[in-house]
């Protein structure tokens, strides 16, 4: 793929850009070509066709970052092409061994393209979301010297839907107009003419081909959400608000289940667990909106799901943190740690097999179906649910104030001699508060909620590191017996000791930061604000 002159220009001086339009119904590319031919000296090149697969993470991180990543198979092999909305030239990487289901970062060849993707996709897998075939005709607009001064690409995209004999589904034909570096004026004339277009003008800024193709394939172009999207009114009944949020969260659990079962990447399970954890918070914090008995059953069901998914997630965290942790110990110990990592990988595989068995088993189906029925069914007489008819703004506000006060008391009792479990309990309470603010914070002014979330997040991050290192160190210490009998065991044990020391050191560092983080969270003005706003 040739770098585009306009892209270089756009990166340096963004006055010459690519502009996309959708052709309105009844105007096809030949009609637009005839229209252009009447107004400018043009050369129309032969139509060229290309097929590609749209790659993105399940939560569309690339789209959010303004990046398109296509997998193109051609005679010369398969390659990845990355295009940026920001105007940089495309990055291309050859793929030696094309994969069917996913690409993790480590599957990509080293180079600029992988470096660019790294901070965006992180640990997420790049998945094939749609397959597109585009027939495009390039029309070059010339000046008096027959020099190209603007380019117009007329494209007829199609989504290929279904596997095997894929069925082509036509997408909206579109026009891309791009400038040539140093020829801004002709570009302006061409753009103005295209915008007026035949039959009353073209559609600016159309939905992207990728999004249209994903939708044609039955997918959601927005990908799997991690944020709850429910319009709540302050005066809404608490039970209805709670159910609306819980239904949205249940959708997230279900959306992440196939990716979890296929083990596409670690974040499907993570996001599934977060959705379950948030649901548990809602049931706990808004318990007055439900009858005690079905509530207890459903809370047990969700707690069980949380429990069966825990071991795999703990080991995922160990492996995700591995490079970071190992980087902090002397290089001459790294090789000795290989058996430790191998053991973690084996444990993780075993934990995942057990998890998959559970998630595919009758107990999970029964628990989940029961929970869904609970959300869809009659919640019972409102008179037996004291908060049911209360406005959500009152009930959620009361809970935010209460949990915040409880955290203040718990945090104030923590000193250098407090056991790690005290910090863990505070963290659990902090999660409750965070979920309340994330799920219901929209009922209050953003200017109040945002700083509160920020100081809470900083405290939680510190508590999270503290707890993760505790769990990791405990787990690694527990590997000692198994390691001792393996090849390279003695050396691995010594290196393991260094690694555990490093975990302890990071835990201590986190703990040292506690006083300052908690002070910010518990600042007098923050307390006054909470008392005032959430009263």
């Amino acid at each position, binding site marked *: 793929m040739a*770098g*585009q002159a306009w892209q270089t220009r756009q990166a*340096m001086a963004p006055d010459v850009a690519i502009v996309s339009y959708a052709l309105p119904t009844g105007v096809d590319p030949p009609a637009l070509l005839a229209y252009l031919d009447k107004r400018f000296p043009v050369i129309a090149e032969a139509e060229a066709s290309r097929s590609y697969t749209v790659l993105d993470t399940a939560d569309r991180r690339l789209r959010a970052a303004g990046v398109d990543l296509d997998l193109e198979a051609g005679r010369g092999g398969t390659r990845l092409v990355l295009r940026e909305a920001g105007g940089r030239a495309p990055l291309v990487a050859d793929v030696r061994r094309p994969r069917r289901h996913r690409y993790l970062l480590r599957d990509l060849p080293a180079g600029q393209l992988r470096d660019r993707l790294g901070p965006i996709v992180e640990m997420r897998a790049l998945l094939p979301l749609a397959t597109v075939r585009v027939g495009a005709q390039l029309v070059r607009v010339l000046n008096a010297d027959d*020099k190209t001064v603007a380019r117009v690409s007329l494209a007829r995209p199609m989504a290929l839907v279904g596997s095997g004999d894929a069925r082509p589904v036509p997408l909206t034909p579109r026009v891309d107009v791009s400038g*040539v*570096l140093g020829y801004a004026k002709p570009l302006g004339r061409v753009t103005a003419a295209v915008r007026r277009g035949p039959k009353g003008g073209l559609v600016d800024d159309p939905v992207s081909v990728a999004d249209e193709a994903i939708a044609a394939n039955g997918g959601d172009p927005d990908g799997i959400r991690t944020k709850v999207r429910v319009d709540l009114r302050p005066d809404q009944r608490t039970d209805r608000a709670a159910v609306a949020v819980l239904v949205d969260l249940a959708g997230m659990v279900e959306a992440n289940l196939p990716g979890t079962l296929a083990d596409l990447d670690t974040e499907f399970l993570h996001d599934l667990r977060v959705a379950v954890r948030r649901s548990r918070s809602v049931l706990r914090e808004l318990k007055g909106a439900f009858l005690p008995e079905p509530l207890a059953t459903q809370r047990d069901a969700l707690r069980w799901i949380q429990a069966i998914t825990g071991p795999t997630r703990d080991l995922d965290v160990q492996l995700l943190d591995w490079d970071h942790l190992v980087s902090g110990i002397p290089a001459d110990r790294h090789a000795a740690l290989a058996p430790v990592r191998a053991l973690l990988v084996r444990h993780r595989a075993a934990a995942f097999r057990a998890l998959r068995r559970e998630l595919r088993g009758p107990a999970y189906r029964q628990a989940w179906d029961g929970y869904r029925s609970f959300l869809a069914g009659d919640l019972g007489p409102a008179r037996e649910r004291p908060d049911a008819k209360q406005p959500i703004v009152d009930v959620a506000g009361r809970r935010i104030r209460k949990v915040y006060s409880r955290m203040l008391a718990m945090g104030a009792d923590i000193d250098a001699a407090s056991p790690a479990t005290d910090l863990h309990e505070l963290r659990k309470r902090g999660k409750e508060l965070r979920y309340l603010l994330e799920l219901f914070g929209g009922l209050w002014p953003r200017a109040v909620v945002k700083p509160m979330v920020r100081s809470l997040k900083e405290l939680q991050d510190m508590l999270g590191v503290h707890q993760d290192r505790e769990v990791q160190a405990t787990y690694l210490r527990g590997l000692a017996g198994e390691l001792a009998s393996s090849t390279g065991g003695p050396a691995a044990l010594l290196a393991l000791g260094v690694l555990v020391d490093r975990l302890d050191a990071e835990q201590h560092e986190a703990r040292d930061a506690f006083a300052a983080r908690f002070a910010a969270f518990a600042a007098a003005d923050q307390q006054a604000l909470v008392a005032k706003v959430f009263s």
Partner: protein
Amino acid sequence: MRVVATYNIKGGVGKTSAAVNLAALAAQDGLRTLLWDLDPQGAASFLFRIRPKVKGGGGKLVRGRSDVVDLLRGTDVEGLDLLPADFSYRHMDLALDATGKPTRRLRKVIAPLAEHYDLAMLDCPPSISLVSESVFDAADVLLVPLIPSTLTVRTFAQLGDFVSGEVAHRPRIVAFFSMVDGRKRLHREVVSTLPASNMDDVVASAIPAATEVELMGVERAPVVVSAPHSRAARAYRSLWDEVRPRVGV
């Protein structure tokens, strides 16, 4: 950004033809490519149908008073941009001499473009001058077209000595035979016997004396674009395939 300069002390040896064709091939290979037409005759600019005119002239440009970005022009080859020639470049020696550290100047002019291009190709005027010294300083690779003749060895040795002795930043020298007429015995002999003294590299690919190359002035396009399957275009492709790894792009 890696910098390649097509250079020979003699004129009419195929520098411009090599510069425009290799630059076009680089762009076709997906490299973001810049071609700077340093020759006041402006042949490369002409071939791309771009006016050989630089606002403020060469003097302002080398003094750092022009925004080089504003002077760039896109060519008809996607991915290839041109910094055009200007007739004032004929006085570039004087303009350089009036600056501090004149031999570092051209490197400085293109430095702001480094993040936007993978490759810069400098098409140099013939001669050994302050301009060529500044080109040697800016270039990672000097690409030297050689017409097979008895004087070739001598000219070449001169260049090797000069670059070794006078230039602080020594570019890699890569040579190739240009305008080769296989019917001439002398050409055949020189091509097979040229010693590689003072040369980092003489590549195997040779550019033939071909009508298509001469027709570039009529077509006003690189031969690799206007006649991509011609013998000359194939020779440039073969040359680029040999040169590219030596440039490191």
